[in-house]
Structures are given as structure tokens and as C-alpha cells.
């Protein structure tokens, strides 16, 4: 009969969590990236992998990605034109150099203003933050891909990437 206690525990953990996060966000921490809240973007960009936070790439990257969803990292992620326009607007409005700027500035360090990287996992800042992750960990059967953020950052769906 310990089921009734579970929600309470979760609430306490949740409270502690948001307190820490608020603190860090106010201090300009680089471990909170607001998650996607638009239901269409969540559905179309969050079924094969985590719906990556728009503030992790600059608007020009999202534009470039949205222009060729048919060849999306070897997958066909294409959607109809109206849906694509809606997703594009959301991503570019909340991007690392637009609406999501206050969360992301450091992630864009070292990227030339005219380059439009498609992978978060190839941004110099991202690579630097993960340089100590050993090879076997990337290859672990529960990880397999660098894009599988949730495997290591259990709060990624909620936007939290603090170290454990």
C-alpha cells in the first residue's frame, strides 16, 4: 500500500526541481531550454525523437531543415505545406537567436553567422560539454545515438539538462 505516497513524492521532487531550475534560469544558467509546447510541432517533430527545443538552433538552421524534410537525416519527415509553414513559424520564432535567445546564447558560440548547422550535437559548445562522456556510453544499448538526449537527461522532455 505505498501507491498513495507516490504522487506526493513526485510533487515534492517536482517542486524541488522547479526551484532549482528557476534559480538557474534567473542566474542565466545554460541548462534549461523551454520544451516545445505547440501540439502540432510536438506531434510532427516529437514522434521519432524528442521534440528538440527550438532555442537550441538559430532560425536559419530551422529554415534550412524545414526546406528539406523529405531527406531528413535519412528519414522522410515530410508534412503537408500548411503544417510545414506552422512548424517553421514556431521554430524560427523561438530559435536560439530570436525568441529563445535568453536561454541559448552560449550554444551559438563558435558558429559562423552564415553557417546553418542542422545538428545540435555538432555545435562546438555541445561537443565541448560532452567531451568527457566516454565512448562506451555513447554505444550503450540504451543510448545508441547522441540525439537520444533523454537517455542521459531524464528531464529533457521538460527542458532540463542539468548534470546529474
Amino acid at each position, binding site marked *: 500500500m505505498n501507491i498513495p505516497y507516490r504522487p506526493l513524492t513526485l510533487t515534492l521532487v517536482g517542486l524541488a526541481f522547479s526551484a532549482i531550475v528557476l534559480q538557474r534560469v534567473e542566474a542565466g544558467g545554460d541548462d534549461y531550454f523551454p520544451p516545445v509546447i505547440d501540439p502540432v510541432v510536438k506531434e510532427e517533430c*516529437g*514522434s*521519432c*525523437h*524528442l521534440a528538440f527545443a527550438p532555442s537550441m538552433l538559430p532560425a536559419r538552421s530551422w529554415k534550412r531543415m524545414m526546406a528539406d524534410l523529405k531527406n531528413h537525416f*535519412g*528519414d*522522410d*519527415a515530410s*508534412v503537408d505545406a500548411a503544417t510545414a509553414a506552422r512548424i517553421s513559424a514556431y521554430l524560427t520564432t523561438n530559435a536560439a537567436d530570436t525568441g529563445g535567445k535568453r536561454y541559448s546564447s552560449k550554444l551559438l558560440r563558435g558558429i559562423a553567422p552564415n553557417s546553418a548547422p542542422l545538428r545540435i550535437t555538432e555545435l562546438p559548445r555541445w561537443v565541448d560539454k560532452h567531451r568527457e562522456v566516454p565512448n562506451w556510453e555513447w554505444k550503450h544499448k*540504451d*543510448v*545508441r*545515438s547522441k*540525439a*537520444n538526449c*533523454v*537517455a542521459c537527461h531524464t528531464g529533457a522532455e521538460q527542458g532540463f539538462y542539468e548534470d546529474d
Partner: protein
Amino acid sequence: MSSKLAFPLGVAAMLLSTSPFAGPREDLLAQYATAARAEAPAFSGFSSARGEAFHTRKFSGGKPDSPACTSCHGDSPRSAGRTLTGKSIDPVAVSAAPRRYTDPAKVEKWFKRNCNEVLGRACTAQEKGDWLSFMISQ
């Protein structure tokens, strides 16, 4: 003027294409049956047993990382699956996920993507109908 006309026409078209008692899943199966008959005149209906065999079969025409539907949807249709990038997928059996296959555009979108991923080609209407029959029976 033209938009006022388009609305009732659209509704009428929807009513005509949908028999009064069938749900979206039955409609979808009926559509696949029509298409299957056009593909092969000898078509004699769908089989959930064939759908099950299709679901678990390993193909070699698609991507090496995903040789079967079960590569992502898992061995049991009643349990959750997982994509190659670690995203969990709700079960595909209707008994475990009752809202499945009620949006025809979604079903077609994923058949298109996943058949290409696994078989390296589009699925036939027969294959889609068999697979869907299996999931509805589960």
C-alpha cells in the same frame, strides 16, 4: 459565394463515402480492400494471421537498422515500442491503444514512412489491410 457552396458539398461527399455505421477503421479497411482488388483481381480479403507474419518478418530491402516492423514497435503489439533514437512509442494493438487508426491521414503518413524504412518500398494495399486487421484483432 463559392466558399458557401463548397462547405455543403464537402459534407455531402463525406456522408456519401461513409456508410452510417462504420467507424474510421472500418472505412480504412474498406478503402484498402478496394485498392487491393484493383492491384490483384484475385484478392480474397484480409487476414490477421498474414498481418502478424508481416509484422514480425525480417526484410532486407530497407534500412539495416530496422529490418522489421518490430524493430521499433517491439515484439508485442500490446507493449510500448521504441524508435532508434530512443523515443518511446505507444502500443500499436487497438486493445492497448483504442485511439489508433482513427485518423486516416496519420495512418497513411506512417505506412509511407515505415514501409520505406523496413521494406525499401511502399506497402501494397493487401499488406496494409492484413497488418491493420492484425492490430485490430489484438
